[in-house]
């Protein structure tokens, strides 16, 4: 009887250890990390040639996400306002179907760069916890601020404040 209980306990321990090993890394992309080389993730779409030396807003979105739809006009406004001062926006779609992404981008008529993470490798590496999630990266290529979700005016004010702050920093 005791041997039987021991087997169950052993099984539970094996299961817990297995789950811990199988669990995705809790790392992800967070403030202080370096922005990985986007080219290595083979994103669909054309990325801006030069990101280093620019303040980058890397946004993960999907056509099926309501707040993402609300965030696009705000990002377009930010892009028009700050692009000449050094802001680059890269909006990465996690849509599984290319046509859904294209339809969305066409309806939004935005001037910033859009790409699709077809294999969902970049978004997995970034380990975003909600949609949309955006990362503000400084001129040196380090993640400085992370925005989970889009909360209308409140988010826009925060973006403006942070972008202004990063634009004032000297290039590396």
């Amino acid at each position, binding site marked *: 009887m005791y041997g*039987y209980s021991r087997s169950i306990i052993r099984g539970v321990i094996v299961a817990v250890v297995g789950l811990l090993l199988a669990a995705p890394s809790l790392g992800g992309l967070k403030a202080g990390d370096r922005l990985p080389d986007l080219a290595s993730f083979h994103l669909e779409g054309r990325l801006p040639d030069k990101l280093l030396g620019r303040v980058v807003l890397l946004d993960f979105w999907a056509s099926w996400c309501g707040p993402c739809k609300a965030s696009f006009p705000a990002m377009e406004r930010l892009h028009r306002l700050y692009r000449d001062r050094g802001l680059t926006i890269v909006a990465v779609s996690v849509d599984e179907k290319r046509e859904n992404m294209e339809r969305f981008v066409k309806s939004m008529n935005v001037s910033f760069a859009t790409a699709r993470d077809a294999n969902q490798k970049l978004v997995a590496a970034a380990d975003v916890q909600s949609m949309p999630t955006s990362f503000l990266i400084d001129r040196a290529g380090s993640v400085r601020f992370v925005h989970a979700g889009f909360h209308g005016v409140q988010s826009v004010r925060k973006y403006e404040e942070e972008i202004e702050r990063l634009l004032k920093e000297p290039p590396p």
Partner: protein
Amino acid sequence: MRRITSSDLIPMPILSRASLAAALPLLIAGCAAVKPWQREVLSDAIMQPDRNPMSNQLTDHVYFSREAASGGRTVGGGGCGCN
């Protein structure tokens, strides 16, 4: 007379210790977390339990007013039918 123990109820040859120990991790590992970027299908309108909130509100109001029935969904009240 011998007392019945739990080992009599679960015959060990059938459900061996090894198979039980092997099955447990498999059962637990069957739970999969859906990542935020994998929720395209879940976010589809057809997956929503409450696809027409206004219609449901009206139906609830009818149940509440005519049948003095309330609760079960979102309408509160004591079921007095006075609303």
